[in-house]
């Protein structure tokens, strides 16, 4: 840039361009904070556009930047507001990230989730309250592995809601994460072992046999590529589920982390797409982000409406021919049970299997009497209890068969 130092107005121009590029960099930062994925090349192109004369016409610039920076529909819809807020100084309704942490603390449902789920940060706070527990884990591990193993064995059979001791809860979470991992590796291995070519690929056979002068000696088969199983989890996080969601969240976190293809949704009165938040490696931070997304919990569960939202907006994208939808809920529907039945039928048409996990099922004297579960059951392929780690583990052979 210093090559044209003789130009008298140069310093001034340089100053202006520095201001502009500084402003642009700040805008890019704002976009990145709002979840846009923007690389260096986009920044360079944006600068080129501004130099091209787009900067003089804000409306045009906005439209141009929108195409350049957006990468998906949610970006597309969010962009105009962000642009106006940044360049034109209008107020924008929500800046998702920054406001999020403040709201998280006020969300009632999420508090219960957080209380139930000892994340690194949360467990630190418990240790603050109970000073003696600080050195307990060390002492435990010192006692030897044998005890640990038998403890885990016990843990497998304890109903999640009876887990009271925070330490036990922590172990249950650990076990759930571990289980998710084990399930995933087994599933994929079976997937590979089953592949076998079944049709002759004529073109490739001729190609392969050119060096035999065209006599087809070695045959090439066509293999059908198996799609890996995709798991879609819909988790009921309403009040009636009590302690269960927290353990399942950990399980889902493990599943999303380990499965190549998995998606997760959370519902109570509304449906929230939580895969992105759950893909955070650190379980504690994943939960923090989750609390942002599941605002507005409180009265009741509208399973039917949540499923309707799912069918209408998400199903086409997340469900393919080898998908299994796993609904974790107690089936206490406060909305319209008939709607739930209709939406379940719609869902059943789309996906290969529906598994409904009901933690209450193992309770003594429980019968699927609730109107919601009655309407849903005809469309469910597997209805199973999921109140202990053992019952979660029992699912694996079923999923592997899909």
């Amino acid at each position, binding site marked *: 840039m210093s090559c044209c130092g003789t130009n008298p107005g140069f310093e001034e121009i340089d100053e202006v361009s520095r201001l502009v590029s500084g402003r642009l960099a700040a805008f890019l930062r704002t976009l990145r904070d709002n979840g846009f*994925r*923007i*690389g260096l*090349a*986009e920044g360079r*192109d944006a600068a*080129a*556009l501004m130099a*091209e004369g787009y900067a003089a016409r804000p409306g*045009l610039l906005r*439209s*141009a930047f*929108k*195409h*350049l920076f*957006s*990468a*998906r*529909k949610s*970006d*597309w819809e969010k962009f105009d507001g962000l642009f106006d807020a940044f360049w034109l100084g209008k107020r924008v309704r929500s800046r998702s990230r920054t406001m999020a942490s403040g709201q998280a603390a006020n969300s009632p449902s999420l508090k219960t989730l957080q209380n139930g789920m000892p994340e690194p940060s949360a467990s630190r706070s418990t240790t603050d309250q109970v000073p003696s527990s600080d050195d307990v884990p060390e002492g435990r591990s010192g006692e030897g592995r044998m005890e640990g193993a038998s403890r885990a064995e016990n843990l497998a059979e304890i109903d999640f809601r009876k887990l009271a001791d925070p330490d036990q809860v922590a172990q249950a979470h650990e076990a759930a994460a571990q289980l998710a991992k084990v399930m995933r590796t087994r599933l994929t291995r079976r997937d590979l072992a089953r592949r076998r070519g079944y049709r002759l690929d004529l*073109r490739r056979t*001729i*190609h392969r046999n*050119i060096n035999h*002068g*065209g006599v087809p000696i070695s045959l090439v088969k066509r293999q059908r*590529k198996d799609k890996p199983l995709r798991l879609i989890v819909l988790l009921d996080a309403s009040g009636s589920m009590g302690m269960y969601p927290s353990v399942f969240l950990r399980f889902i976190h493990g599943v999303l982390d380990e499965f190549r293809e998995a998606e997760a949704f959370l519902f109570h009165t509304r449906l929230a797409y939580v895969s992105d938040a759950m893909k955070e490696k650190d379980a504690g931070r994943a939960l923090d982000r989750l609390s942002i997304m599941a605002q507005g919990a409180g009265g009741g569960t509208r399973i039917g409406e949540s499923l309707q939202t799912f069918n209408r907006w998400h199903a*086409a*994208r997340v469900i*393919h021919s080898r998908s299994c939808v796993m609904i974790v809920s107690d089936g206490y529907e406060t909305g319209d049970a008939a709607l739930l039945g209709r939406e379940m039928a*719609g869902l059943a048409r789309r996906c290969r299997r529906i598994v409904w996990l009901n933690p209450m099922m193992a309770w003594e004297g429980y019968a699927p009497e609730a109107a919601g579960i009655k309407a849903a059951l005809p469309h469910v392929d597997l209805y199973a209890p999921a109140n202990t780690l053992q019952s979660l583990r029992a699912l694996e052979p079923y999923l592997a068969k899909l």
Partner: protein
Amino acid sequence: MKGREEIAQALAASGYIADAELATAISLMQLLRRPLLLEGEAGVGKTEVAKALAQAHSTELIRLQCYEGLDQSAALYEWNYQRQLLAIQAHHGEDADAVEDRIFSEKYLLERPLLAAIRREQAPVLLIDEIDRADDEFEAFLLELLSDFQVSIPELGTVSAVTIPHVVLTSNGTRELSDALRRRCLYHYVDYPDVDRETRIILARIANASPSLSLQIARMVQEIRKEDLRKVPGVAETLDWAAALVGLDIRDLNDAPETVHETLICLLKTHEDRARFTPEVTQRLLGKVA
């Protein structure tokens, strides 16, 4: 083609009514030399954009329809093995090197869409349709091609692009695309057109459609899209319906509510949706439109 107005006009001349934003996108596509990724529901006219663009540039449209299992030999190039074999047998006894040179020459190369697109004298429009149906692996391969615009064929050497094609990708959102591909492309979300634009589309596409009828049809379709349907009708369905009504010599929708109701089969493509639309529902919507 530089300015947005000219682009919009050129597209209109080839039968595609673009909104201002799409025109911007296309002008950017030329300015920045980036591919354009079009997303949107089925039937909103994503593929039509590429067709109209090719016509506006008066250049060739090369189309690659993606599907599951699409691989390099179907997308990029393949040797014509049968001919190679024949050549080997026909020139039996010839020097091995000479045979090799012969059978690995242009003559025996089968050009597939991607290779064809970079070897044209005049830059064509390359339409990569429904990229979300292809596998992840293919997407990664495509990404490489789109950044370098060169292909290496082991037997022939590297083929560099003669001209850089105008690349349009479309996606229905049946699979999440990779961030890398999204970042590489300009993004435009194609929505259902508003009443005004849909009216103009009908007028442009259906001969003999009167402006008043077109407006009524566009409004009616707009109302139908608001209903809770399993399959929301796209622009293509609107055009079908308009053609049907014009063919049946309807001048005004309110004149023949029965015919309107019966011809709704052009728009409603599932049994459930059809069952939902009782004559009363049609009547109610007609009332809103008139």
